[in-house]
């Protein structure tokens, strides 16, 4: 198998060895190893492998850009200090772009396809969403590795004008609409299944109160903790008032 293909497959599990000390650095080293074995001078290879395993943090779908750029720079004989600076400079922008476009954009849209599709059509839509996500993951990873290998130390120019950067705003808008649609679609449909004798509006009121609490409390009280606390209190109250 070609080194690029092996590296691509390894990038699909780039966070397996994630640690607080080096974050995704070990995954980057594992993915870069086949590329460094090819085309890097033998006397430089051990140093290149050691550098590739240093601290690195970015978005897992886009780590290929860093892996490719680093491998290309090592092959071109770029001084070690410059490669380390490139690595340090890439992490933040890759992470920010990936969080914005993928975690806060594509995933909520695909989640909406899965949830609303499941509610209206059935199990095939969540399965289709997984197939779509897999195809996107493969393509984004393949593109990022290829562009990293092509551009080497000039990789920053790729980020500036790539398709992902251009669609970031549109995907964010689509994600906001999709999340809104999903939230109330599920809420109303679930009330019909779980409490058919109940009007749907108490859920809206509960949701509005919950939203105020969750936004006010921030990270200390996310919705799942709020539900656990409120659910526990509801059960205690029910025990006290039940006939």
């Amino acid at each position: 198998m070609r080194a690029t293909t092996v590296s691509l497959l390894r990038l699909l599990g780039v966070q397996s060895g994630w640690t607080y000390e080096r974050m995704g650095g070990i995954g980057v080293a594992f993915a870069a190893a086949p590329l460094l074995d090819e085309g890097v001078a033998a006397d430089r290879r051990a140093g290149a492998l050691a550098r590739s395993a240093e601290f690195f943090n970015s978005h897992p779908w886009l780590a290929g850009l860093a892996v490719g750029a680093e491998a290309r720079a090592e092959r071109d004989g770029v001084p070690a200090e410059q490669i380390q600076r490139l690595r340090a400079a890439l992490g933040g922008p890759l992470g920010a772009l990936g969080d914005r476009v993928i975690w806060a954009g594509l995933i909520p849209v695909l989640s909406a396809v899965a949830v609303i599709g499941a509610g209206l059509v059935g199990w095939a839509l969540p399965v289709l969403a997984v197939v779509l996500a897999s195809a996107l993951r493969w393509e984004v990873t393949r593109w990022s590795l290829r562009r990293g290998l092509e551009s080497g130390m000039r990789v920053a120019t790729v980020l500036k004008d790539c398709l992902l950067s251009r669609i970031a705003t549109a995907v964010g808008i689509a994600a906001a609409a999709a999340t809104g649609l999903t939230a109330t679609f599920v809420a109303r449909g679930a009330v019909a299944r779980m409490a058919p004798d109940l009007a749907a509006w108490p859920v809206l009121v509960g949701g509005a109160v919950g939203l105020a609490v969750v936004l006010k409390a921030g990270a200390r009280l996310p919705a799942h903790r709020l539900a656990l606390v409120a659910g526990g209190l509801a059960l205690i109250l029910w025990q006290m008032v039940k006939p």
Partner: protein
Amino acid sequence: MTWIQAIGLLLVGTAAGLDLVSGPQVLLARPIVAGTLSGLVLGDVTSGILVGGILELYALEVLPVGAARYPDHGPGTVGAVWLTVQTGTLAAAFGVLLALALAELGGYSLIALRRLNGRALVRAAPALDRGEPHAASQLQHGGALRDVGRSLLLTVVALAAARAVLPLVLQAVDASEFLAVVVIGAGLAGAVAGAIRTSGGSHRAALLGTGLVLGWLAGGMAGIFPRWGGW
């Protein structure tokens, strides 16, 4: 539950846990997918979609970013679907609450996993710094194996907890309606809060509001079908 179903549920839960961080992150960790697959395994897709759909609202609040501790919803969803299949969809709120408790536990298990990976890193650091080719490979494979173990264990705990609370749930089934309002309302709050935090701009806020209204109308229409959930 047959042996084949048990093995199927363990596979779904393990795949979901693994996909959250170590795997390719292609939605297998999402509750709607884990719930639907669990429903298929148990022969009750409607329960799977219903429980997975509600839990998905909570997952929409979470950005799985870097070193933060975030809940792991997948394995708990498997236990929740099993519980809902036993109790019926009217009592699905109990399953949802169980899954949320396990999601919190799952978040702590991720911290433990990262610390275990860190210990392995300390042992392998000299070899890594010498540029030995197999050091990173061993750490990656070790991390993946530990995550398989974590996800499998979490799924076993979820199924065991679901089985343990089943008699209590059957006694408290009269509280289901009240609990349904709580879990659906909090889920709604979570999804909208997540969208508000990541949107910011006025265009996005307007579209979020439009989506909320349209979803409410569409959910009402879907609600007239007796089998919301597709089947």
